[in-house]
């Protein structure tokens, strides 16, 4: 785990991620400017650090209703505005980027932040960026696999010899600068299905598992498939960290949490995904066994501890700001996270 800068003795890490979505607040119908949204995300990261959050990541989406297409640039501002929080992408669409440039950016980010940068590489759920950036979506899988392999090769070797289908060959290529401690933690983004998790497992790559809703036990199958595949690939699952990431919202009680959050998720998903979130499924989000962490601080603590028992994961990452969530509500959540939720989680998961 040391290679991935994770010390299991410190207990479950608590992180926050944003997709960098730029959506109207459904309560007012108003949308802040892209400039304001980016400034808010930078401020949000700083406030998260103050609340004791250990990880903050920003997504890359190239379409309407998103503002952090240049996520590495936003992360660089966050690196400058913070001191100890780990910073990462969630995720970097490696398929449509040059791994050399991505590595240069994140190694630089690691130097700026003093060794806090990580990469989470994903394949994109919406595919408009293939046209925008000049790639053929027919190569969706091949592009990801080839470029992800190259990214990891660059991470492990300062001088690279490589050739592939989608990029010019590299001959004794030195990729600089190098990160503070020689390499970066690189994760594979997994959408929650066992098939996708197994690819991360076979390659012995840490898994960043994003999920919407459903029983935690359903996702345990994905976690098991990941660890089995890692073992089959000759890797030690005990050395491979797992992160889970999904919706989070804390309020005085679960009814208030549902009320505050639902319009943001429902309206936001309609715009970004083309279909809302059914109320029936959302109402089940407060169930103790549901993987969505919505409720009172105490309920959320119990849910996260239950998930930790089921998955044995090393990092939980909360998405709170989706769908035009106003800053005051984010601040209130950070307050509850910092004063109640993180202390309880650490108490039960950290080795004394």
């Amino acid at each position, binding site marked *: 785990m040391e290679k991935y800068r994770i010390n299991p003795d410190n207990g479950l890490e608590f992180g926050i991620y944003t997709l960098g979505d730029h959506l109207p607040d459904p309560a007012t119908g108003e949308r802040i400017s892209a400039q304001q949204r980016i400034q808010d995300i930078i401020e949000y990261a700083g406030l998260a650090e103050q609340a004791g959050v250990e990880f903050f990541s920003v997504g890359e989406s190239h379409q309407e209703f998103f503002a952090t297409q240049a996520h590495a640039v936003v992360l660089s501002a966050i690196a400058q505005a913070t001191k100890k929080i780990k910073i990462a992408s969630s995720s970097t669409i490696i398929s449509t980027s040059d791994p050399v440039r991505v590595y240069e950016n994140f190694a630089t980010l690691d130097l700026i932040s003093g060794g806090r940068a990580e990469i989470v590489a994903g394949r994109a*759920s*919406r*595919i*408009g960026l293939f046209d925008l950036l000049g790639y053929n*979506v*027919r190569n*969706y899988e091949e592009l990801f696999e080839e470029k992800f392999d190259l990214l990891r090769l660059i991470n492990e070797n300062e001088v690279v010899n490589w050739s592939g289908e989608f990029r010019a060959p590299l001959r004794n290529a030195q990729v600089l600068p190098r990160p503070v401690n020689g390499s970066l933690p690189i994760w594979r983004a997994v959408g929650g299905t066992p098939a996708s998790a197994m690819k991360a497992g076979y390659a012995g790559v840490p898994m960043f598992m994003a999920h919407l809703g459903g029983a935690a036990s359903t996702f345990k199958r994905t976690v098991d498939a990941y660890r089995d595949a890692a073992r089959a690939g000759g890797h030690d699952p005990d050395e491979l960290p797992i992160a889970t990431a999904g919706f989070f919202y804390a309020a005085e009680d679960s*009814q208030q949490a*549902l*009320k505050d959050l*639902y319009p943001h998720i429902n309206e936001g998903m309609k715009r970004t*995904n*083309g*279909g809302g979130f*059914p*109320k*029936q499924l*959302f*109402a089940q989000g407060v169930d103790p066994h549901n993987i969505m962490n919505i409720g009172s601080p105490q309920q959320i603590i119990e849910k996260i501890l239950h998930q930790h028992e089921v998955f044995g994961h090393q990092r939980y990452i909360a998405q709170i700001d989706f769908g035009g969530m106003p800053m005051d509500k984010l601040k209130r959540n950070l307050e509850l996270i910092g004063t109640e939720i993180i202390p309880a989680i650490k108490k039960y998961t950290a080795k004394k």
Partner: protein
Amino acid sequence: MKIVGLSGSQIGSKTRIAMTATIKSLSEKYPEVETELIDLADYKMEFSDGRNYLDYEGDTGYVTKTLMEADAIVIGTPIFQASIPAALKNIFDLLPVNAFRDKVVSMLVTAGSAKHYMVADTQLKPILAYMKAQMVQTFVFVVEEDFYQKEIINHDVLLRIERLAEDTVVLTETFTKIREEKEAEYDF
């Protein structure tokens, strides 16, 4: 309420004629209902390549978005080679898995032979059920002999079309009401 009629074939005229009659019946009886007929023969559709339906442009984007915004859909289909046409299956493939959640879908089938009567039950309904449609169980089945010179001449078919239109509207109203009441109970 918006009801979209989908004539699911690029070949022939029977399905289009029957669907035009269905939309006419709907708008005469329910002038307050917004209706639109999409005849796939009029659109240049791309094959599904797996992208989100919002990412299609041109005719493909128009058809998928119009269907997704509908409260109810009347699907008209001929039977080709003992099955639904590829053009119609492509529509299903273009849409998300839960595309028909909270939608009512009814069916009208035209065929060259009454021997194809079970095709909708064995092949179309399972797809609609998978995509979470609330179905009008009774469909209208129309054969070659019911047409003469591009018109439906069998009065029984016209009466059945009227009932299909009525059932589609009543079921949509009913499910909308049930859903609204249920959603109000959640209080969020």
